[in-house]
């Protein structure tokens, strides 16, 4: 069946493939990392085939995540800068949480909450990479002084905490806002969804579409 006219495409197949690969890699990283984070989570080390394998594989998965994440993040920087009506939207965060969406101003492709998720991950994943490399045995840790490794270990744990909390929020938002998961699985949203949640983006897309369809 052809794409019906009441839809807007939001994510290309490449974006979607990247997103779900990243999601799987992130979950494996979080589970294997948490295993070392606190004894209460040690049992999670079995998700990667036991604690030794978790120790070996975790940093390599981290590098995979970094490559996928920044490839995606680089393409979305512009859309994640502070935009029209964002400040107003943030002031009305109470309306957002109470689902009084009709009171909210129209906003761009991403709302300020989504932008916060974006920047939180841009920063925390960079810190995870830097600190992770400094802790990485047997390859790199030997080149760094022990006090620096101590600092990196603390930084890695805190950045991982920030990244994990951010992802928990991100996942909840996807469950909360019906129609958004489909945009990342099938690639499209309904026009009504776009107008309702991202009015400025919907207008922009519809105008672009109209222009292109003019002979």
């Amino acid at each position, binding site marked *: 069946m052809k794409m019906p006219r009441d839809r807007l495409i939001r994510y290309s197949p490449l974006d979607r493939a990247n997103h779900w690969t990243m999601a799987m890699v992130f979950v494996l990283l979080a589970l294997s990392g948490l295993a070392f984070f606190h004894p*209460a989570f040690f049992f999670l080390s079995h998700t990667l085939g036991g604690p*030794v394998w978790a120790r070996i594989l975790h940093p390599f998965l981290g590098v995979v995540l970094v490559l996928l994440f920044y490839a995606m993040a680089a393409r979305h920087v512009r859309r994640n800068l502070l935009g029209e009506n964002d400040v107003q939207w943030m002031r009305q965060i109470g309306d957002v949480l109470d689902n009084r969406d009709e009171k909210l101003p129209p906003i761009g492709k991403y709302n300020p909450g989504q932008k916060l998720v974006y920047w939180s991950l841009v920063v925390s994943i960079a810190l995870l990479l830097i600190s992770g490399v400094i802790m990485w045995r047997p390859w790199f*840790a030997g080149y760094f002084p022990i006090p620096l490794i101590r600092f990196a270990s603390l930084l890695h744990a805190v950045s991982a905490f920030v990244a994990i909390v951010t992802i928990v929020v991100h996942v909840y938002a996807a469950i909360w806002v019906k129609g958004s998961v489909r945009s990342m699985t099938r690639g499209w949203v309904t026009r009504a969804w776009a107008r309702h949640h991202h009015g400025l983006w919907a207008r922009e*897309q519809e105008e672009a579409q109209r222009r292109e*369809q003019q002979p």
Partner: protein
Amino acid sequence: MINSQNIIARSATTTEPPQVRSHVEEVAKLIDVSKCIGCKACQVACMEWNDLRDDVGECHGTYDNPTDLTAESWTVMRFSEHESADGNLEWLIRKDGCMHCAEPGCLKACPAPGAIVQYANGIVDFDSNHCIGCGYCITGCPFDIPRISPKDQKSYKCTLCSDRVNAGMEPACVKTCPTNCIEFGTKTDMLARAEKRVGDLKALGFRDAGIYDPAGVGGTHVMYVLHHADDPNRYSGLPKDPRISPLVGAWKGVTKPIMSAIIGITAFAGVIHYMTKGPKEEPEDSPEEEHRATRDGGVPPASLGYDATRRRPGAGRNADDRPQGEDR
């Protein structure tokens, strides 16, 4: 792993370890630096008893051989030449190795349950079978002692011959030392012995002689008698006031339960929010809006969805050109 009834602390464990024999007396090894002649008999004895075969190294122009602790050299003699203020040259020789801290930084940092244990007698032992090779013990240790083997990625260090001690023997280095510079016994006895030696040294004119049993790590089960206890650094960088780094404390302390709790609470808050406020339901298509769009000359009724991700000029101009989306 021996002495499994006898463990007072166990890495990455939040419940009580077995301690039915925790009344066991603490032991200690006393190294009287002033009596050491640097013969390295203890290094050889250590290799022999523990059945270790380090690679043959190279001479670096000093007596230090090997020049550092390795996964297969659990003790090394460190030689330093110190010129005192009055122009005297002192040749200071220190047997380096694990200090068997009462509050071990290695054990605090280790994420693998049971890979590092502390026995009731004070010995800190690595159970290499449970070691995962992360190197956190190196990060935690204030004395830079543990070494990860490049062969098997497991961490190793002096066991204080826990196997021998368990069977009522003294450690191999103690047994072999020709000058009795290394002695072994209960910590109480060793402290008394050390006091006596410090008295002797003071009588010989070493005014700053003293015992090295640093309180910052709760005391150690390997102690030194130093002629210059005021400046332990002189002995190849023995730290003056060693303690578990505050960074390690912050990394392994209350931050972890707090961060874990916040992760859980965040997820739980989501559940509660969903239950009380409910989801943002998918908005219904409103027919007039659709109509308006069409009337404005926008989207012809039969047109396909618009692909915002395609930037190619002219894309979407005719139906064949347009992305297909997916079949429903």
